């Protein structure tokens, strides 16, 4: 039976809000920003701070490509409003290497060929760093389960699990 399509409601006119000042400490550097409230943390990083290592995949919290560490915990930066995180510490893939040496997870991903196209990799590595800090995963089954928020369309999952196991043993 044919159903009528609802007309799209007319949007009320909302005055453009003033940009909101905020401070984020990104990869150890205190950064002052002025952002419109709808700017996600992901867009703040990529478009306002030129930190394009964090990737926009689905932009809906389904793929994990945008994963960063926020005050040490892994989150989807695409579903986080930057203005809500005033004062927070953010670590992105660009902030993991120390003094020119790769983070153990970055080295392990190379050692075990844990990527093909590489688009999901920054999110995979940030997510794995959060996973190791949380300390709840011990077995491959547990790693797979607690990494399920990071999709790899190339299907590098077995090598990702092996790489994370290696980094866990060395951390």
């Amino acid at each position, binding site marked *: 039976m044919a159903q009528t399509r609802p007309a799209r409601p007319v949007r009320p006119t909302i005055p453009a809000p003033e940009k909101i000042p905020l401070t984020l400490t990104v990869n150890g550097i205190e950064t002052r920003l002025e952002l419109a409230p709808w700017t996600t943390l992901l867009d703040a990083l990529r478009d306002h701070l030129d930190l394009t290592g964090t990737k926009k995949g689905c932009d809906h919290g389904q793929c994990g490509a945008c994963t960063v560490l926020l005050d040490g915990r892994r989150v989807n930066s695409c*579903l986080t409003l930057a203005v809500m995180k005033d004062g927070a510490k953010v670590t992105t893939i660009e902030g993991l290497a120390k003094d020119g040496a790769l983070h153990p997870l970055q080295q392990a991903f190379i050692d075990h060929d844990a990527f093909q196209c590489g688009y999901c990799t920054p999110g995979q590595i940030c997510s794995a760093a959060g996973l190791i800090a949380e300390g709840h995963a011990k077995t491959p089954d547990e790693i797979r389960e607690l990494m399920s928020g*990071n999709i790899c369309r190339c299907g590098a999952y077995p090598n990702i699990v092996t790489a994370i196991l290696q980094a866990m043993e060395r951390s």
Partner: protein
Amino acid sequence: MINFQYSRASDVADAVRQIAADPKARFIAGGTNLLDLMKEDVERPTRLIDITRLPLKAVEDTPDGGLRIGALVPNSDIAYHPQVVQRFPMLASAILAGASAQLRNMASTGGNLMQRTRCPYFYDVATPCNKRTPGSGCAALAGINRMHAILGASDACIAAHPSDMGVALAALAATVHVSGLKGERSIAFGDFHRLPGTTPERDNNLGADEIITAIALPAKGFAKNYTYLKIRDRLSYAFALVSVAAALELDGDTIKEARLALGSVAHKPWRDLGVEASLRGQTATRETFAQAADAMLRDAKSYGHNAFKIDLARRAIVRALTQAARSTPQSQSNKKIR
């Protein structure tokens, strides 16, 4: 994303004042569902009231031996909280069955209750949906409805409530504490969410001026005989087709008390006090569990694609009660169902 105003609530009273003053405003905490819906053009708030700085982050013992969980405690903090793991493991298990580690780090306790259905027609603004646009019709009734409700639905809406955590909270007889212009009140978990009836646009009974402040668990946690069994299309990070929270208090093989709630089969976590009462005094056998499953599903109705869910739910109930009786709760990392 759409244009909106942003403000912060300084305390609970301020949050209540702000939401009461602006019917098109929404609270935001974890944002995992609301921001997604705003990007999809389903939710169009004119103002977001940031409540993340409110002092609602404590997990505390209550005088009656229960546990009170602040509305802003992240889902992952509840799932790994020592008191929850030890005394309310069914709740921990249900939380870990849902979403992803990142989303659980972000999503709040109160927000989990406020999340909206994942009915694809609700999300697709090009299709009719009585929940999104009252009076426009329900595209799911004659559409692809394999994920949809089999219990308590109406001709206006067959959407299912997607929460895992809520199914355990229903079985544990939790209480929702809220604050509004008229003061504080508490709502039994079973009375918090609604069936769709003719007003599917209303998911729950929270007043327009009210905010969730905490969830309280009564002392009884059923830590010995429980399970949370979730059946879904893939092993992780998927919404349930059917889920079952089952808990028993046993004296030998005799059931002293039973709790049973189903997820993703109705517009709310589905608990049936009559079925629980009928299990009291029975012997914990497969036959007893099968009778309970039949009783739970006595009014189940198929809308076409979701016919399989009735049999699936029946078998999941029997399996879950068996797991609970044997003290072999479903693992949320090794997904083999035993």
